[in-house]
Structure formats: structure tokens, C-alpha cells
């Protein structure tokens, strides 16, 4: 997000997120490391401690959406974040996969994890879904959906497919430079995909929010 080298500041009301823009704040373990070579070599309990602090001690202020990025797998971090956030309200999880079975087989486990911990699933995103050669415009399936891709898996498991994002070299470049891909490549098919997915996520959250207000 173009925030490398930033540090976290403390105030009376807790840790302050690092702001990209007035309405976009970030908290990350990355801000607590003093060098790009520093490794976080911690076992579970210490990690859980930091996650708790991120949730309890950060002065987020009034926020419409809190997006939580997680590491791959179903580990301490995942258990902890779900446990610690259970008192607050998690709208749900968005699960990312690539099209091939080797990825899907792990994602099915992730979906089972969500069911186990009663975490609603907003939907699945199929990333790196095809590549259109900029020269000849032919499409290649670099990560082939040999078992039907996310689409088939979502059908089988009754989970929403939020969308498919194609490979675009600009995505990696923008991320590396800390620039907004959506702003840098507004015409890219990947941008269109992202925007559709984001809209669906917003609709899901707003719909469920309304439902809850009705119940209350």
C-alpha cells in the first residue's frame, strides 16, 4: 500500500493506524519491524498476543469496513482472530483461490474451517483466472481449472462465486510500487472484475446489516 518504512504512533487512545488516505487506515506487523530483514519467528501464543493488541489497542475510530488480511492455512492466527472478533460482528469471510485443483483442495478445507467456527462465507474469488497475451490476444490457462475451477467447487459446496480475476502484469507492478491498481489501470479487465466483486461484497454486507437491524 506504499507504506513501507512507516511506523506506528501511540496516543492516549491507543495505537494509531497508518493512514494511506483520510479514509483508509492500515495496521500491520510490518510497521513494528525495524528492518526489512527482520523476521517474526514466533510460536502461536506470542502471535495471538499481538493479534489481540491489534484488535484491542488500535484506535480505529468510526469505520464502515474493516478488512482483515490473513496468512494462508488454518492456524493459530485464524483461530485467534475469529475468537477475538466473535464479540464484535464479523460479516463474513471472502475466500481466495486460484483455478487449479491443488489450490481448490486447500480451499475446501478453508471452507470447512469457516463452517466449523461458524464464520459466514460471503463468497469465493477465483484469482489468476486466465491470461490474455498482450500481443496476440490469445488466452492461456496458466493455472488450469482441471476439476472445474472455483465455479464447480462453489456449486458443489453451495457457496457464492463472487467473481474471477484474470492475470494482469500491472497488478503486481502496482502492488510493488504501492500504487492503487484500480486507479492506475481503470480499463483493465481485472479492474472490472475487482469492482464487480467489491460491489457484491458491499451488497452482501449491507443486506445482512439491514436484516440484523430488523431483528433488533
Amino acid at each position, binding site marked *: 500500500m506504499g507504506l513501507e518504512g512507516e511506523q506506528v504512533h501511540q496516543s492516549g487512545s491507543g495505537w494509531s493506524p497508518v493512514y494511506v488516505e483520510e479514509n483508509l487506515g492500515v495496521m500491520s506487523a510490518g510497521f513494528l519491524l525495524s528492518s526489512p530483514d527482520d*523476521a517474526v519467528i514466533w510460536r502461536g501464543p506470542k502471535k495471538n498476543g499481538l493479534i489481540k493488541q491489534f484488535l484491542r489497542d488500535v484506535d480505529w475510530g468510526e469505520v464502515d469496513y474493516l478488512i482483515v488480511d490473513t496468512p494462508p*492455512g488454518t492456524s493459530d492466527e485464524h483461530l485467534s482472530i475469529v475468537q477475538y472478533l466473535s464479540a464484535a460482528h464479523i460479516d463474513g469471510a471472502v475466500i481466495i483461490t486460484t483455478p487449479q*485443483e491443488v489450490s481448490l483442495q*486447500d480451499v475446501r*478445507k478453508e471452507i470447512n474451517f469457516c463452517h466449523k467456527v461458524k464464520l459466514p462465507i460471503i463468497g469465493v474469488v477465483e484469482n489468476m483466472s486466465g491470461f490474455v497475451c498482450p500481443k496476440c490476444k*490469445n488466452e*492461456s490457462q496458466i493455472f488450469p481449472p482441471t476439476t472445474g475451477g472455483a465455479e464447480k467447487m462453489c456449486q458443489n459446496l453451495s457457496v457464492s462465486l463472487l467473481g474471477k480475476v484474470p492475470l494482469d*502484469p500491472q497488478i503486481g507492478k502496482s502492488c510493488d510500487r504501492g500504487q492503487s491498481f484500480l486507479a492506475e489501470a481503470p480499463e483493465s479487465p481485472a479492474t472490472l472484475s475487482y469492482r464487480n466483486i467489491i460491489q457484491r461484497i458491499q451488497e452482501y454486507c449491507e443486506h445482512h446489516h439491514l436484516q440484523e437491524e430488523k431483528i433488533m
Partner: protein
Amino acid sequence: MRGGNMEETAGERASLAGVRHIVLVLSGKGGVGKSTLCTELALALRHAGKRVGILDVDLCGPSIPRMLRAQDSAVHQCDSGWVPVFVGQDIALMSIGFLLERPDDAVVWRGPKKNALIKQFVTDVAWGELDFLIVDTPPGTSDEHISTVEALRPFQLLGAVLVTTPQAVSVGDVRRELTFCRKAGLQILGIVENMSGFVCPHCSECTNIFSKGGGEELAKHTGVPFLGCVPLDPQLSQSLEEGRDFIQEFPKSSAFPALTHIAQQILDTSQRSS
């Protein structure tokens, strides 16, 4: 443990005592191709006439069984412990994938339980006589990594291969992985830059989908050997999906030269260390 004292000692020693070289495959980042590299490295070494095993320590996302068409196999017990599953070209494999009741079961364990299983995979598996044991790990620097290195320390740990994709966000994580290796006293065999460029099969135009050169630069910057760039290769992905032997079946494919070159460098290093 069953049997008298002599048998017990032999059983304890037999775990990894017969393995001549252990290679750890690490990455700071997920999804960069560790499991792919483990699989292809194992196949290439096997084709070079070596006896090879793979230890799959990625407990949450065990990919190796599928990559070697062994997803329906089961593990058996013998007197000296678990018997690894023999897959592909006679490669010995142990993975949590073989112990799950259902393939979609999530392993939702905290550290201590994971550590216990990793220790078992090292001490309670009858690996026998192997030239190489390749160890596949989950991404990052977590319980699994600390425990794996601790469990492997008494044995012939040749070193670690670090996998990255070319772009900065991946390289940034691999720098941290290097720190882990240095702190753990692991020899760094080298860095592999995976998913490095894509040659369109229709028009041969090369596109650097995930940028280019980051892995090589990191190796230069940190004084670590650079083992090579592996391009994106749909035939490689397809081969892994189907559990095929890519090294045997696709010698003309774009990733083949790089993968066999990496295996050769590992072989050379192992011969020097012997």
C-alpha cells in the same frame, strides 16, 4: 516401543539416520511454488539415480500427495514405525494428507499439536536408506518451521532452498525467511525465482506477469547462490494437476531446463559436502 534394548536403539536411530542429505524448501510467501519445486526436485534426483523421499510438513495445505497421484493412498505401520507411501518413480512420501479421514478435513490445530506430529514424522517413520529427503514446508516462519528445524538438527541437514516469485512483495518476505535461516544456523543452498516470465504458446511473446529479476537481485544483494529462474509453464501446472512425472514426460517444456539445472546444482553441492 516394542522389543529389547538393541531393537529400541536401532528403531530410534533408523528414523533419519539412513538419509544422506536433507533439503528444506522454504519461502516467506505462500503460493510461490514450494510444493511444485519439491516435487520436481524429487523427480529429477530420482531420474539421476538417487533414492529420494519427501516429507510434507505443510499440515494445513498438504499438496504433495496429489502432485504425485497418491491422494488416495494410506499409511501402514511396521515394527519401526510408519511406512512411507511409495509414489511416482519410487519416491518415499509422508504427509498429513494420508492421515486425514476425509480429504476436505481442515487441520485446525494450534502449535503444540502440530509440533508433536512433525516430531513423529521425523522419528517414527521408517525412512530407511535414502540419498535425499526433500522437506516441503508451509509459508512463513512459524511453529512448523521452528519445530522442523529442531527435529532435523541431529541429522544430515544439507541446507535450505528458498523459493520466491520475482515481484517485490514476495522478495520482501523471502528476505525475512533468510533471516530465519541465518538465525537457525541453516546453510542456504540458494534462491529460486519461480513464475519468472511467461512465454505465450501461441506467439512466443514473453510477458513478465509477476515482474522479473527480484529473486536474482536478492541473491546478489545477500551473497547467496542463485539457482535459477523457472518460467510459468502451463504444461507444468497441468502435469502437477494430474500427478504426472513432468521430468520424464515433458523434456521440451519451458520449465524443464531450469528445473533440471536446479537439481544438478543441489547434487553438486551434496557431492562437495560428502
